[in-house]
């Protein structure tokens, strides 16, 4: 308490007005947005969407065979073609699924971010409404 007694009487209220309100309504929302952007970038990097798109139809795990030099060996050509197509198909399916998962995560991130930001900014108002609701309830009872 000695600290409080030594403190000039108007310092804390002044500090609250001068520092707290800009901090609450400007600084913290900025921090929330920055954090959100950080996570968006992190998940974009983890799922490498750009790389997945670039290699969307590349053979899965480089499983591919070479076509025979004599293209008249139709059966052999067909076998190689089937294998290569299958490898590319598998690659396409897995990469598409991964891209979808990445997009879902981004949507979830956005939802969490918007919720946190709204709650933070609107909380003083919500608290006032809540208190008013409680008093209103008292009056009716």
């Amino acid at each position, binding site marked *: *308490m000695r*600290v*409080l007694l*030594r*403190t*000039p009487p108007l*310092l*804390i209220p002044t*500090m609250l007005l001068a*520092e*707290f309100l800009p*901090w*609450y309504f400007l*600084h*913290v929302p900025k921090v929330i947005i920055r*954090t959100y952007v*950080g*996570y968006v*970038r*992190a998940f974009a*990097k*983890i*799922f*490498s969407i*750009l*790389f*997945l798109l*670039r*290699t969307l139809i*590349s053979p*899965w*795990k*480089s*499983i591919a065979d070479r076509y025979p030099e004599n293209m008249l060996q139709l059966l052999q050509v067909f076998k190689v073609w089937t294998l290569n197509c299958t490898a590319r198909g598998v*690659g396409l399916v*897995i*990469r598409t699924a*991964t891209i979808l998962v990445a997009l879902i995560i981004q949507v979830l991130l956005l939802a969490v971010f918007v919720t946190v930001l709204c709650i933070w900014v609107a*909380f003083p108002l919500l*608290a006032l409404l*809540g*208190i008013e*609701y*409680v008093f209103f*309830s*008292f009056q009716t*009872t």
Partner: protein
Amino acid sequence: MTNARFHLEATQAYAGVALHRLLFSIPSWLVYIAVLVSGIHFSLKYESPELLAVTVITVTFALFALYFFIVSHLWHKNRSHLTSENLADRLSADMVRMLTKEAEVTAGSLLHAALATRRGATFLQLLGVERKSFLQDFEYDVHKEEGIIALLERADKLRGEEGETCIDGNIIVFLFLAEGGEEATAFLNEQDLALKDVKHVLSWEQFHETWDLAVHSWHPERLVERIGTIGHGWVQGYTDELDAYCTDLTKGLSEQSSSEIVIHKQEIEQVLQVLSRSADQNVLLLGRSGVGKRTLVQNVAKAIRTHEDKQTLPYTRVLLLHSELLVSSAAQPDTVLLQALNRASRAGRFMLVVDNLSVLVQCRKGDVLAVLAKFLKSPKLSLLAVANPQDYHVLRSKDPALGELFETVTVDDAARDETLLVLMEHAFHIWDRTRLRLSYKTLMAVLDLSDRYVGSEGFPGKAIVVLNDAALAAKRRGGVIITEEDVRTAVSVKAHMDVSEISEDERGRLLKLEEKIKTRIIGQDDALAALANALKRARLELTNRARPIGTFLFLGPTGVGKTQTAKELAAAYFGDEEALIRLDMNEFSNADSVKLLVGAPDVSDELAEGQLARRVQDKPFSLILLDEIEKAHPAVINVFLQVLDEGHLTDSTGIKTDFRNTIIIATSNAGALFIRDFLRAHEGEKETDFKQSLIDSIIKEKTFTPEFINRFDEVVLYRPLSVEDAKRVSLLMLDEIVGDLKDKKGIAVELEEGVVEMIVEQGYSREFGAREMRRTIVDLVENYLADYMLKNDVKRGDTIRIRKVDLGTDT
């Protein structure tokens, strides 16, 4: 700063302290509980749970927001200053918090507060001083009327120089030590610390702070490091055959503890440059054990991965080939490797790291090197081979084409400063792993002792090994701090030599070194005193560190104990007579004999490896005796100039051998005639004059150059033996014979009075010294004993009496 003032209360940090105490003191918590109880009461009374919910949520959120406001804003180190004149506003929140506990703000209370802060306490701990003992030992007058403004202005200047955002406890404690006047100097002297050391500790503490505040595991950047990236590996094929003999260094690359300190940056750049070529992307890393070749490979792998991440390129796999496993487990390693590399080269781009190239090249089960050579041109494969210089030169002597396959990058020892930084970081790892702490002095002991006594490996590796071993030693004795003694224990084990602090016992032994050798070397008291004094200086680490322990030139006629002194010294100093490397310089009398010492430049020459270098590498703690140095060729003497001056020898292949743990003694008969004549002519003259005259005479005769003589720590002069000395020598020799016979055969020998005098009379030679005496004793005594034992039936327990008349008959 003009208009500077100090108002602690007019700072955000102080307001934060006040607000924190207002909101989170015990009375405040009682109020919150009262509100909660009222909420519960009214919600039950009016059957309205919403009332309770609203109360709890509102109060909790408000408290959370205010706490967050205090910590992240009012106490933040980067907070804005209310005014530029108030120096109190430059203090860290921790300092302000501690100062509010002091009755008044004085220089003394500032120091007290600084020591109580987290950073101040860490600074002291790294300095190796307890807070309590610091306050006792550092006799700073805390009531001294020192202007707080002037003090803080200096602290603020230092803060700026150190790149700190606010004045914390570390800055204040450092300031008191750096500018604390006589009290600070006395304290630092008592702690055996220089101001430069305290500055290093300040940097170490700052490094600790960044380490301590490293990003948390949930931070986005850390998340990417932990999870890695998905999809890059899907374009790479399977490499099962190769995987059986390899470890993927890129797997979990980001999870590996990232190091802030990166050494060999230039070499990393060189490797990356070679790897970025379109062809011939093969590198040979050449460096001795411990210089950080493996870490360099990991840093290269990280740099490649970072580049590929930025460019969204498919990943390059970095595979570490376990050569020993391949060679020992595969019946035909070359065939297995060929198949594995064939398949791997179709699977995508990869870099093969061959950790121990010599194992592969020397493999007798097929030509593995030829298989590797086949793939060296492939753009999909880069080969990063690692070898130590000795092995490499042997390999090149067998296969000269090897050098053309790779671009060689030499990895040298890290500098002492770099090693200190690596050790500072490693200390944090040890703390994380074992909770053991260590001080700056311990760190310096690791650096100095490993530098001095562990010559076989390079920096920083050997220092890290010593630190780890010291941590184990500390743990074994149940300590919480790694002490200098733990470091000495670890180094003693590693160097096979006792390097513990000089104990009372050893102190006695060192002091008695001269006495001990004197019992065996007769008539050379002045020479032995000079020798012993030089060695005492060396043991107390007073001598120049970049030279051998001691270098001596023994001058004197033959048979006066020069070589014997070297033998006795090896036994007394290194505790082992085997620690003597004796080179007869007669064998080094032509220019070609330099090869015997440093090896031949031509790797196919059978003398490619230098004899002296190899012997010192095998036995770093030894006494090197260069017998009859005057007979060596001048080219050979030139080789020794480097050793005597710099403490190392660079052989023909560029390999450096450390001679800093050796004692080098060169003996010479040069000037023997001068000594004899001079002493005859100038009986009783001062030794300094005599010595200088002798050296002048030797230089005049061009036996040695002045540069060579000046390289030695001491030129030790051996005088010809006097008759009295000769008698003592003969007694020593006779004692040896008598003792030997008693020990081996149990036969006692008694000498009649006058026998010794008779031997001395016949064996004394001013020119040949003890050598002539030895010959006389062999002729007279040993021959007599042999004859007697053959002629008579001498049994164990019998006594043989030697009379003058017996020896007289024989002669």
